[in-house]
């Protein structure tokens, strides 16, 4: 079936409105498939002679589904040329759909699905069901050493235990949970293509797991050849390794924040007092910095307050990372610091080059860390809203 893919690419580069115009001008017949790491299931739009005739997005179908897909700003698309058997459900004209869809996104009637989406949209009330599922791209089987099955409720990894295995989810959903005195606290859910296990597995043999992973429903996992990944990690420059470690630390801190919020032990003062913004949320700063001395904090501005996200120290990186989308600074968070902060600008081009040379699996792994950062931030913001209002 894959052979029929005649057009594919990134939604960031070519938005749905543009794709629809292109297919329209070409009078194409076939299926447009959209995949987003932020959505549990792919979306489909069926075209006949360039006009959309039906669509599906999660539970929605027809016109409603097409409109929902306009909110997908980050993801992949592929168009396969094939005959359409689907009934003609949509009769509205192509341009009408495009203009209406974009208007609905701008009006906030359609949910934006992508990094930093939470800052533009009022988050829904939080319960376990709204913990978002993170998905990854297609799995590269070259790195899968073995397959393992887990049943519903079974523990894959336990917090506090030793272990350095890394899995990729082939099928199913896994929930990442932190243990707290009040019971387990769900952080994120991982779906197909996501990774279980962190970068620290490469650093220390038999490192201690920082969270618990539980199977939700039956799950099939691929055990990754971590030896090979560790070797690849070892060939990277110390700077690039530093960047990855810094990212991993940031992710762990976000999980910490969620736990602290639950325990009502989070003190925003230590993140903001006496500090001035180094990078202001929403500015177009294109540079990346490494901290030489002092500390800085990452804070997101929301309608309901400033949410502290992470503390950065000597050796940590902040700023724009061109190849990764954290949903943090500079677009969706500020970096604050006292005047004694010392930083050095980093050569982004070198990092970009190094990133491009990585193997697909390693790239996916890093992308997954970045997506987890972005989604965990959303979870932290949700908890912040929920628990700070309960006070």
């Amino acid at each position: 079936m894959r052979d029929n893919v005649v057009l594919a690419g990134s939604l960031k580069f070519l938005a749905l409105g543009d794709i629809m115009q292109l297919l329209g001008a070409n009078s194409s017949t076939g299926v447009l498939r959209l995949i987003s790491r932020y959505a549990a299931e792919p979306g489909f739009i069926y075209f006949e002679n360039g006009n959309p005739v039906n669509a599906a997005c999660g539970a929605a179908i027809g016109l409603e589904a097409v409109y929902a897909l306009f909110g997908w700003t980050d993801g992949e698309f592929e168009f396969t040329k094939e005959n359409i058997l689907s009934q003609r459900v949509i009769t509205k004209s192509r341009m009408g759909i495009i203009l209406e869809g974009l208007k609905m996104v701008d009006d906030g009637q359609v949910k934006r699905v992508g990094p930093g989406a939470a800052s533009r949209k009022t988050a829904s009330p939080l319960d376990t069901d709204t913990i978002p599922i993170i998905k990854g791209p297609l799995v590269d089987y070259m790195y899968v050493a073995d397959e393992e099955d887990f049943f519903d409720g079974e523990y894959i990894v336990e917090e506090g235990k030793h272990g350095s295995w890394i899995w990729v989810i082939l099928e199913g959903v896994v929930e990442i949970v932190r243990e707290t005195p009040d019971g387990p606290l769900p952080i994120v859910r991982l779906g197909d293509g996501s990774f279980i296990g962190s970068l620290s597995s490469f650093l220390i043999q038999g490192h201690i797991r920082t969270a618990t992973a539980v199977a939700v429903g039956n799950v099939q996992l691929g055990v990754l050849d971590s030896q090979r990944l560790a070797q690849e990690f070892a060939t990277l420059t110390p700077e690039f390794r530093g960047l990855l470690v810094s990212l991993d630390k940031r992710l762990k801190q976000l999980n910490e924040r969620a736990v602290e919020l639950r325990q009502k032990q989070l003190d925003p003062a230590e993140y903001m007092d006496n500090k001035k913004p180094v990078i202001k949320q929403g500015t177009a700063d294109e540079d990346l910095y490494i901290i030489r001395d002092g500390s800085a904090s990452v804070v997101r501005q929301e309608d309901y307050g400033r949410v502290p996200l992470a503390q950065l120290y000597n050796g940590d990186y902040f700023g724009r990372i061109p190849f990764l989308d954290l949903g943090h600074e500079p677009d969706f968070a500020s970096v604050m610091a006292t005047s004694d902060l010392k930083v050095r600008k980093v050569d982004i081009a070198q990092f970009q080059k190094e990133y491009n040379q990585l193997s697909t699996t390693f790239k996916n792994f890093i992308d997954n860390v970045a997506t987890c950062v972005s989604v965990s931030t959303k979870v932290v913001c949700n908890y912040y809203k929920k628990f700070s209002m309960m006070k």
Partner: protein
Amino acid sequence: MAIFNLKKREIECKVVYYGPGRCGKTTNLEYIFSSYKKQVKGEMVSINTEGDRTLFFDFLPMGLGQIRGCDVRVQLYTVPGQVKYSSTRKLVLRGVDGIVFVADSLEVRREKNMLSLKDLQANLKDYGKSIFKVPLVMQYNKRDLAEQGIPLMPIEQMERDLNRQLKVPAFEASAVVGTGVGNTLKECLKLTLQALQREFKWAK
């Protein structure tokens, strides 16, 4: 950036009506739609946006001839004025070939006109275009309201306010009754097609 559709042997270009809210962009397009029915292809798309309406339809200008054996099809659009409609604006303004700037003749709208023109310049810049180079026609709308004793700006003043640097063709109009609407569009299409011809000559 016009699109060549080799399948249909058509050149598709975009003309956008720009201007402050309630200046009569929509009325312009509605008038064209109803009085040039024969040349309109397909239905008119109308989207209600805050404080304004966004319109779109396809238009086949007659008597303008062909470019390199291809028919010319024009997509006419209006843009929602509100800042928040950035997705729509992006889609509409990307690859725009010609622009009609509709200015409101009401005295009270003087500042709104100038702000909107500035806004157009900034938006075009985002898509790598210069307001001085893009085919542009100015329309001073609502001239008929003078008869009802509503204070309007004299044409000379509007020229000074909006067209001093640009020096583009300008038309008086009253879109409600249709005066000047056809002339504005014709001039804009002429400039647009001339620009396209020039572009294709270079490409030869």
